[in-house]
């Protein structure tokens, strides 16, 4: 049963990821992206981590996908698809991808995935919460400051001069 569900989820996740990249229609592409994110939530359910799975659904499918849809609908197509392509950019892109993949792989291999045990009881989300505010508190505060900084930056960027006064003057 679990194997069949795993296979189905894998097919959904990878298939809709490919669809998200390849589909001509941007809206369908973002729907396919939702499928990918939902499939990842399914993987978390399969791993007995419903807390993470539901947050994946609420945050990624519920909010991030909405933001992407919103952007796609309101921004002109030409602005997204302005292509600048030459050899240097191509090689830099490939190099960047290799660096990111190697570093992610190193993190994975270093995280103790080699000695994984499959039949352990699932971790309690309360323990994770306690860990966050005790041992990992500097990381938590750093993340909070980063998010606050990015929200402030977004507000500054989005703030515009009052148009109304201009119209009145003219």
């Amino acid at each position, binding site marked *: 049963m679990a194997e069949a569900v795993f296979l189905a989820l894998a097919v959904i996740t990878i298939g809709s990821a490919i669809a998200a990249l390849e589909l001509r229609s941007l*809206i369908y592409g973002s729907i396919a992206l939702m499928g990918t994110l939902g499939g990842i939530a399914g993987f978390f359910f399969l791993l007995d981590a419903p*807390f993470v799975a*539901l*947050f994946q*659904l*609420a945050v990624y499918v*519920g909010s991030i996908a*909405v933001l992407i849809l*919103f952007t796609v609908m*309101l921004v002109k197509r030409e602005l997204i698809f302005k292509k600048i392509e030459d050899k240097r950019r191509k090689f830099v892109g490939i190099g960047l991808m290799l660096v990111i993949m190697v570093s992610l792989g190193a993190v994975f291999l270093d995280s103790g995935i080699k000695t994984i045990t499959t039949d352990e009881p699932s971790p309690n989300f309360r323990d994770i919460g306690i860990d966050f505010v005790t041992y990992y508190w500097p990381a938590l505060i750093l993340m909070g400051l980063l998010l606050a900084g990015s929200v402030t930056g977004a507000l500054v960027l989005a703030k515009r001069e009052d148009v109304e006064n201009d119209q009145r003057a003219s």
Partner: protein
Amino acid sequence: MSVIAPKFKLSEFIKSLLDNVFWIILILVLIGLPAIFMILFVIELPVINGELLTPFLALSWLVNPTRTLPIVHAFMETDIFRVIAFPGFGFAALLAAGTIFVERKMLAKLQLRVGPFYCGKFEGILQLMGDGLKLISKEIIIPAKADKPIFWAAPVLFVAAAAAFVAFIPVAPGWVVADVEMGLLGVFAVIGFFPIITILSAWSANSKFPFIGGIRALFQMVSFEIPLILSLLGVVMLTGSLNLSEIAASQSSFPWIVFLPVGAIVFFITMLAELERIPFDLPEAESEIVAGWLTELSGMMYGLVQLGTYLKLYAFAGLFVVIFLGGWNGPMVVPPFPAEILENGIEMGPVTAKFVGLPLFTQEMLNGTLWFVLKTAGVIFFILLPRGVFPRIRVDMLLNLGWTKLIGLAFVNIFIALGLLYAGVLGPGGLQ
């Protein structure tokens, strides 16, 4: 002479009925019974209590109440019953239908109108059924340049998301469709799907008014989701659980609204906004943008969206009751099932009928359901009330309210909860 059917004759009508009966019996005997017996050759019949369940036995069970009640009892324990009938879809749809009737009559009385009057003998009580029949029989028109797959899927998805929301609401102790550990998080995840469905439906219609309405709905829902989630965190902190049944059970001595009135007010206002009800009905503002994101939906597609809207209304009211008003908790008012019927059975003249499997529902379940329904009806009344009183507010006022005032108040509520927890008033070692 009738106006509707001028050539009506009673004899002809009875003849046509008898004709139908004749043909039904003929077809059943010639085709139906042989087909049933042919199927019976193939199917392996189950053995129940050492008896082979032949069709004859099944029929005799059906007419024998002493045999039927245990079957009904066993059926009520199944998941199918819970999803279709009692705490799930059927119950919610029934309450939603009642809500629609009360809304129309009550608004009419508030505004000195009559409201639905002609359908049904009493106060237009069958108006909803008439409307439903009309919607089912209407043609579904799809705009020529619409994106058809999404346009077709959106109403169905809307109802599905609303039904998934309903599944999380516990009605009585143990009576909930999905009793999951992370019930409240599940609710947040399901609420997050509504803006996506709305904006996709609005975009796929490829029309001006639906798109304006959809964008408004997106603004409104996304910005009010944050105070909605924050306003419920206080209760989660005090209860120490995300399971909705446990949250309801934790309020046996007093409801949380006593200690967290700020959170309840914030949740109520965000609830109005998420439900797109007046004064926050900008997404379907009928006097500005026709019907907002519902403009191009016709026939039963519109009907499905309406059904989903009212299911969502019931689910939000139920969530308010479960989290702030104590859920099913209340004084025991339902009398216990009479013991003589259990012991002696019912005597009707010379016949004494003993019923195995009674009572069908326990006293706690009936009492809990009664209190839950009463409280939910009260909350629904207060959700309906602003529609008769308030005008629609502007979109900038709405966003200002959501992003500044409500989020601030939600944080105040969290600090009140933390204060109560650390002062030892509530939580471990406190009152509860």
